[in-house]
Every structure is written in structure tokens, then in C-alpha cells.
């Protein structure tokens, strides 16, 4: 094959950019899911703390 370094270089650019884009999308999606998950856990922890608080207040008043 003639011009082999040029052909390899051009196809490598094509493959690398497509792969970088796919990996970038996957990482962004993973980060968004993790963020949503930690937010969900924080919300649940806050809710259970609020539920426990009235019981504690009643106990202290007694």
C-alpha cells in the first residue's frame, strides 16, 4: 500500500476521536448517575433523621 503512514494516521484520528467521544459520554453518564444516587441517599438520610427527631423530643419532654 502506498502512502501508508498517511492512511494509518488519518484512520487513527477517526477511530480515536469516535472512541474518545463514546468514553466521554459514558463517563459523564456515570458521573450523573453517581451524583443522583448520592443525592438520593442524602435525602433518605435526612428523611429518616426527621422521622426520628419527634420521637426523641417526646422522650426528652417526658
Amino acid at each position, binding site marked *: 500500500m502506498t*502512502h501508508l503512514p498517511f492512511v494509518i494516521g*488519518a484512520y487513527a*484520528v477517526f477511530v480515536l476521536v469516535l472512541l*474518545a*467521544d*463514546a468514553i466521554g459520554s459514558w463517563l*459523564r453518564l456515570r458521573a450523573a448517575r453517581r451524583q*443522583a444516587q448520592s*443525592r*438520593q441517599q442524602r435525602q433518605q438520610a435526612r428523611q429518616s433523621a426527621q422521622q426520628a427527631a419527634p420521637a426523641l423530643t417526646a422522650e426528652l419532654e417526658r
Partner: protein
Amino acid sequence: MNPIVRWFHQLGSPPTFDRFAARWSRVFYIAALPVLLVGLWQALLVVPPEARQLDSFRILYIHVPSAWMSLFVFALMALYAAIALIWRIKICEILAMACAPMGAGFTLITLLTGSIWGKGTWGTWWDWDPRMTSELVLLFLYLGVIGLYHAIEDRRSAARAAGLLAIVGVSLLPVIRYSVDWWGGLHQRQSISVFGDSAISSAMIAPLWWMVIGTKFWFAGSVLAKARADNLDREAGKAWVGERVEETPR
């Protein structure tokens, strides 16, 4: 209501879009792989060398589909941005902004592969040829849209500002398309036509269509994955996001 119209309306809802994007981004990525592999195999190993450029012409099979995609993606981004501005549809804002990174990627491929091809055939990496210069301006526009979207804290205001830039930027597309006819330069005139006769041999054109379809599928997968991530970011804290994250713990 017409079922198709109703489906479009439902798709505007963030939870429905999330389900749709989760399924179809994967389908498009998986569909793109065999199509691109067939295209690459034909482009590199099946098609005979061209009479004058010999094997360096094989760069055409990645350069031309990427160039077409760089224009198509920008037009699509501007269309989504216009819909978002007129009808205030949040998912269209998200889709418009999800188009920009992949569009910039295709423009970068076009410029780099064109530069490599130019060195092999014209003897120069770069020339301020009208087609090359206008394509470089397109890359700057994509980067401008991405930069503007990330520079403003409020997501909706950011998407509106960046969308407006995309709509204004559409005026560059005919300049890129007709630059060779208007000003000449190193690039040759159009030799491949989607609907009419092409100037290149039919034996050499098959891989090009495989690559054109493959890049479209890849783009569809990419844009849906990015839009899904942005949608989850914007909707974080809503009940459906929590349910969805718990449903699929990966």
C-alpha cells in the same frame, strides 16, 4: 390524538426521554459498530487504489462522511435550538447542547484527516483555502457553543444563549458548502452526489455509504447518551431520578 403526535409529546417528558435514551443510545452504538467495520474493511482492503492518488485516496472514506456530519450536526443543533427557543421544550435544549461535542469531534476529524491527506497529495499540511478556512471557523463555532453553555450557571439560560449562537452560525453552512464554487482553492468541486450521478466510480462509492450510515448511527448513540446525562443532571433531586437510579444500580 394521533399516536405518533402523542408519542412525541410524551418524549418531551424527562422520565420518558430517559427511558428512551437509555435504550436507544445503546442500540445505535451497537448498530454503528458492524456498519463502520464493513465500511472500514471495504475502504482499506476491497476498493482498488485510485489511478493518480493511489492509496492516499482511501482517506476520502473517513474525511467526506465526517465533513458531511460536521455540517449535518450543526444544522440539527440549530433546529433543536430553534424549537427550544420557540416552544420552550426542555428536551430540545438538552438535545441541541448534546449535539455540539460530537459535531466538534467530526469537524476535528475533517480538519485533521484533510490535513494529512493534503500533505500526501498537495504537499502541504495546511493552506488558507476557502473550504479549509470555513471548516476551521465551524470548529470555532462549535467550541463557542460548548464554551457558552458551560460559562453560564443557569442551565436554561445557558442553553438559550448557546442555542442562539448555533442559530446564527447556520449562516456559515452554505458558505462551507459552496466555498469551492464561489472562490475555488485547492479543493476540487463536488464529485459525489447523494441523489444524482457521482463523478467517482460506482465500485469505489459503496464503502462511502457504509461510512455515512455508520457515522450517523454513532452520532445518534452519542447524542442520546450525552442528552441522557444532561437530563439526569438537570432533574437531580426529583423523585423519578431517585427511582431510576435505584432501579438500575450500574
